[in-house]
């Protein structure tokens, strides 16, 4: 009844463009050359064929979009300006997804296409933070991250990528680019588009043809659709707990050193095990945020380049050493050896927490991308000293309680200072326009959507970090151990809750660089 032609592989549609045909003629790549997308915004009509064709090609469910279309508007009626932007992966010369991946799941092929090795991926989703275009997308059903690969398997067979084939207006094309020449000059002229981060950040290769009359005050269709970022609950607990364990261990080390050198009372044998348990709990919780928790060990593959691998390695070592130290305390091993072990634990922890903090130093998330993130990650551990103080109090060693409370108030004050600094950050003017837009969205989330949580944080931080520890100290020195214990226990609980709330806000309000989105769907991330 119906007569299909034999094959369309060699048939050229009469579009005079790459669209329509299922085969594509691409030049062989010379030295320094790679394939890239060319997007012509003067042709795109926002029909979203590319989005649907991509999902049809790759069998992806509706919520996993490798190609997305956004909209920009400006001007004043009838001199309205309207533009659409369709984006897959920009197959960057310095891909941030690849840089940060702890499992080496990203590969930049010889033809420049950045592909994702699905089997290696553990679903840590670090790349979804790192990419300032929001390209990699977590695929729930598969437990891994996936992304646009320019239909490389089609390209390798001279077949047209799905989006290119489907675009009725020929707005998406594949072309070859000389990466050196591109980086020398044209990237600044042709690599940028409204609503995107500067192309130099990752050395994106996509070439844009834009309309000439883009008004300065354009807005994207989803400008006011400000969605909170992922809550990352396992990471909230993981980071706070490991930071507590680290600072606690640091205090323990100092105390043990003072014990050996100046004859201070010996630290309680319960201190190290308590801290170990907190750290170990935190570290194991981190596996819960992985798409494939059982493959978590894969995070150690890229220690050389990935801060996440470093974090996993050093915090892992920290926890193991902490366990060893705990055993030493409980079994009464040699004190010198113990001190050396403690020193090693502290060193591993310091590198671990530093690596942990560096994970967040990424241009894609401006509210994270500052030095105070590192300081905060260290100072959050003041709770560790509170915990130790509580143990000392229970053990009846008031001299040590006094010292620890003083130390904890010192660190707590630093934390309060950093909190105030972060409030001022939202008003800073020395940022570029793109970052400013993002930071203002973060601010809106903080002050509107998460108003209650933010208030809680504001009130509980000084309470838990300074007021209650001080009160506990006063009570102790006034002779009321009961009240001191009550205040101190409250301080531990309240400061812990406060830090969890603060850390949760840190994640929730970290609006990302992405792309202009659609009115209803936003950036589809």
């Amino acid at each position, binding site marked *: 009844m119906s007569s299909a032609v034999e094959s369309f592989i060699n048939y050229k549609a009469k579009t005079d463009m790459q*669209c329509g045909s299922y085969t594509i003629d691409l030049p062989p790549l010379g030295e320094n050359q790679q394939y890239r997308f060319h997007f012509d915004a003067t042709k795109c009509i926002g029909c979203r064929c590319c*989005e649907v064709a991509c999902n049809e*090609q790759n069998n992806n469910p509706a919520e996993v979009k490798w190609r997305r279309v956004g909209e920009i508007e400006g001007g004043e009626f*009838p*001199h309205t*300006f*309207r533009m659409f932007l369709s984006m897959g992966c920009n197959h960057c010369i310095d891909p941030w997804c690849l840089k940060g991946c702890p499992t080496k799941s990203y590969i930049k092929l010889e033809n420049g296409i950045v592909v994702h090795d699905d089997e290696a991926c553990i679903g840590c989703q670090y790349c979804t933070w790192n990419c300032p275009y929001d390209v990699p997308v977590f695929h729930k059903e598969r437990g891994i991250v996936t992304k646009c690969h320019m239909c490389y398997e089609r390209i390798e067979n001279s077949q047209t990528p799905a989006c290119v084939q489907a675009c009725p207006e020929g707005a998406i094309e594949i072309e070859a680019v000389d990466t050196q020449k591109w980086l020398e000059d044209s990237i600044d002229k042709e690599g940028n588009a409204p609503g995107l981060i500067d192309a130099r950040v990752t050395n994106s290769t996509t070439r844009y043809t834009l309309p000439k009359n883009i008004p300065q005050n354009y807005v994207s269709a989803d400008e006011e659709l400000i969605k909170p970022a992922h809550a990352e609950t396992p990471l909230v607990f993981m980071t706070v707990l490991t930071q507590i364990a680290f600072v606690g261990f640091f205090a323990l080390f100092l105390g043990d050193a003072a014990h050996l050198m100046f004859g201070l009372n010996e630290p309680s044998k319960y201190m190290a095990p308590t801290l170990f348990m907190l750290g170990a709990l935190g570290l194991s919780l981190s596996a819960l945020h992985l798409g*494939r928790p059982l493959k978590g060990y894969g995070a150690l593959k890229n220690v050389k380049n990935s801060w996440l691998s470093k974090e996993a390695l050093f915090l892992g070592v920290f926890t193991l050493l902490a366990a060893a130290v705990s055993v030493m305390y409980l079994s009464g091993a040699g004190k010198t050896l113990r001190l050396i072990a403690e020193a090693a634990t502290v060193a591993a922890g310091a590198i671990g927490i530093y690596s942990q903090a560096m994970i967040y130093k990424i241009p894609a998330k401006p509210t994270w991308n500052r030095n105070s993130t590192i300081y905060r990650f260290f100072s959050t551990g003041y709770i560790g000293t509170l915990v130790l103080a509580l143990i000392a109090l229970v053990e009846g060693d008031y001299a040590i309680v006094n010292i620890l409370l003083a130390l904890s108030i010192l660190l707590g004050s630093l934390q309060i200072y950093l909190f105030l600094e972060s409030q001022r950050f939202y008003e800073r003017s020395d940022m570029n326009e793109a970052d400013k837009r993002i930071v203002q969205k973060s601010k809106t989330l903080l002050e509107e959507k998460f108003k209650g949580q933010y208030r809680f944080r504001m009130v509980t931080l000084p309470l838990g970090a300074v007021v209650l520890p001080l009160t506990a100290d006063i009570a102790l020195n006034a002779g009321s151990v009961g009240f001191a214990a009550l205040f101190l226990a409250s301080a531990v609980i309240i400061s812990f809750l406060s830090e969890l709330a603060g850390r949760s806000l840190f994640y929730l309000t970290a609006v990302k660089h992405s792309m202009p989105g659609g009115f*209803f769907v936003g950036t589809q991330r």
Partner: protein
Amino acid sequence: MFSKIKELLKLDIKEDKYALADDPLFGKISKEKKPDRWIKSTCGYCGVGCGLYIGVKNGRATYTKGDPTHDVNLGTLCPKGLSEHQMLYAPNRTLRPKIRKSGKLQDVTWQEAFEYTAKRFKEIQKRYSSGSLAVISTGQLLTEEFYALGKLVQIGLGTNNYDGNTTLCMSSAVMGYKQSFGSDGPVASYEDIAKAQTIFVIGANLADNHPIIVHHLMKNRKNKKIVVIDPRYTKTASLADIYVPIKPRTDLALLNGLAYIIWEQGWYDESFIKNRTNGWREFVKHIQNYKPGETAHITGLDTKTLYQLAKLYANSERSLICWTMGVNQSYQGTDTVSAINNLAIMTGKIGKEGCGPFSITGQCNAMGTREFGFTSSIPGYRSFENDLDRKEYAEIANVPLERVPASRGYKYAEIIEAIEKEEIKALWVVCTNPLVSFPDQKRLRRALKKLDLLVVQDAFMSDTAMIADVIFAAATWGEKEGCYTNSERRCNKANIAVSPPADSKSDFDIFLEFSRYLGLEEMLFKGWKKPLDAFEEIKRVSKGRLCDYSGMSYETIEQKGGIQWPCNEKHPEGCKRLYGEDMPFAHEDGRARFVCADWIPFESESAKKFPFILNTGRTVEHFHTRTKTGTIEILEALAPEAWIEINPTDARRLRVKNYDKITVSSPRGKVENLRVKVTQTVAPGTVFVPFHFNKQLINIVTAPLFDPKSGEPNFKQTAVSLHSEKMPQGVEIRSEIAGTIGYRKEKSADYTDFTSTKKESDVR
């Protein structure tokens, strides 16, 4: 069990499900969906008529892919077409015939459904009159099905109260063509859109509604001027060289005014007028009322623009005007279409490459029902009033002449009115969903309650099906065979890829089998078994007519990727455009007629109380009333609910921001929970709402105002009031609606400071 655990622990990343495999036709495609066979067919959504292949794997449709050899779409498809196969497995399929028993729709056998309905039809027609049965059909059946249904209704059931939902979209174009040229029939081809040097796109948002036509529009772009005339700055407007922000419903004045300038400047084609038209002198007299000053005043444009447009149109060698619902869905739709035709015939821009007045249709086969559907004319563009036409048809179709109606029955809105007056007691609705698409919903719903019997034939449980007494469970696109005619008269073949689900049947089979229960099979469909049998009769019925199919066969249609009628001995390959030098116009004298029609201003019930003008329309992700696209996840997610486009000036006064909810009201009711979209795409004083959505049903507020000639509703302008949370009483408007013309090329200079140019005087 093991695999479940594996999945829970994410040890299995389903590599196989997301792997690719080699397909011999299309190359690497999804392995899981890789078809075992591809069926060549035509898209079943809109009137563009794209060629495609349906991939079938184990009896299930898994892919739709654009046919690169097809001249219409050259391998591309719109997002609806690309996901069309998903529609077949929608959870809202009707699946089995149903009868309402003790208040609930219950599955029955076909025999019971047919027997019951035949009995009730007969009872009601006997008790009241044969005309007490009415039928409302669609633009989405196959031509063969339309022909069978038309015959069944008009000849068999003996009621001429039969109309289609095409009256909601294309009937003004039909009547406008008839007024001007003597027959229905779109004049040009997509190729002409590609080849034109000047294109006026009037009231047509091609980019959202016909994305594949934009491909042709953007061809030859450097040597082409695109003028978009629309009160709304649509996606299509952003492609224009010149965007003309005309005031709502002043297009007829504009067209008359352009005709005046062309006459005044002597830019008309004297020999064409003399040789091929009638009524020039009267027309010249008529357009004296549309001098540039007056026209500028009416349309909100300036005279310079009017001259520029007239010059561009008249003095380009190849000029084409295309339009859709902005023109048709108007109280003056028919006359506006004729005014477009006037411009074409006064300048001779018709019947030539790159020229022509060109209506773009909305449904996949609105054309098929116009040609052979037996609603607004007797099959083959014959006239009810013409005895010769009736006789000719009766002879060819071998039906008794006295059963061929001598006049057209009630049009869509008149049918509803007759139901209201209890003159019509039984209604058979085929493949359309008035409960979303018809204006003044409250009145419609009140009226339908008065029916003794409502039969709905549909593949989907539409809003209308939910209130039916009987449901005929139909098959849909991909499950049945026949022809669709697209906007450019191209007859395309649609084929069967998969069988209809459960007990559902093709509409063709339903009509034939139902006719048996009515005792009409022998008279109407003797010897018919397949759509091909209807097609053969269509060929005979159309022979020698404008819509001549006599030179076509299913095989040649498929081979050529569709054939544009007339296709006969004279035009064996079909015909790219109508009314070339060798083709006389269809009026008896072979000449086209100038139509003198005056512009009538849009008047609202109470300008003070309802100060905003509401415009309705569509978005690319959805088709009509969403019975199909609403179930396709990827499309539904992109446009999940209705929004209202409001100019920032008005938004400020209503104190609303993006994503707020707002209520629209008119004297007929109110629509709540519309999401505010603050945008410069609409002029102050005007708002836009898509009509697709049944929960935020905008047709509650639209007015029962119809073009007296075509019966088409005036959907595009409704006086409404807006009520926000902070301004529950609404606001008043003092400013003029719409503004000056937007020049794409000249607007960059003073462009960047738009926020400072708001005038206080606009705000009360």
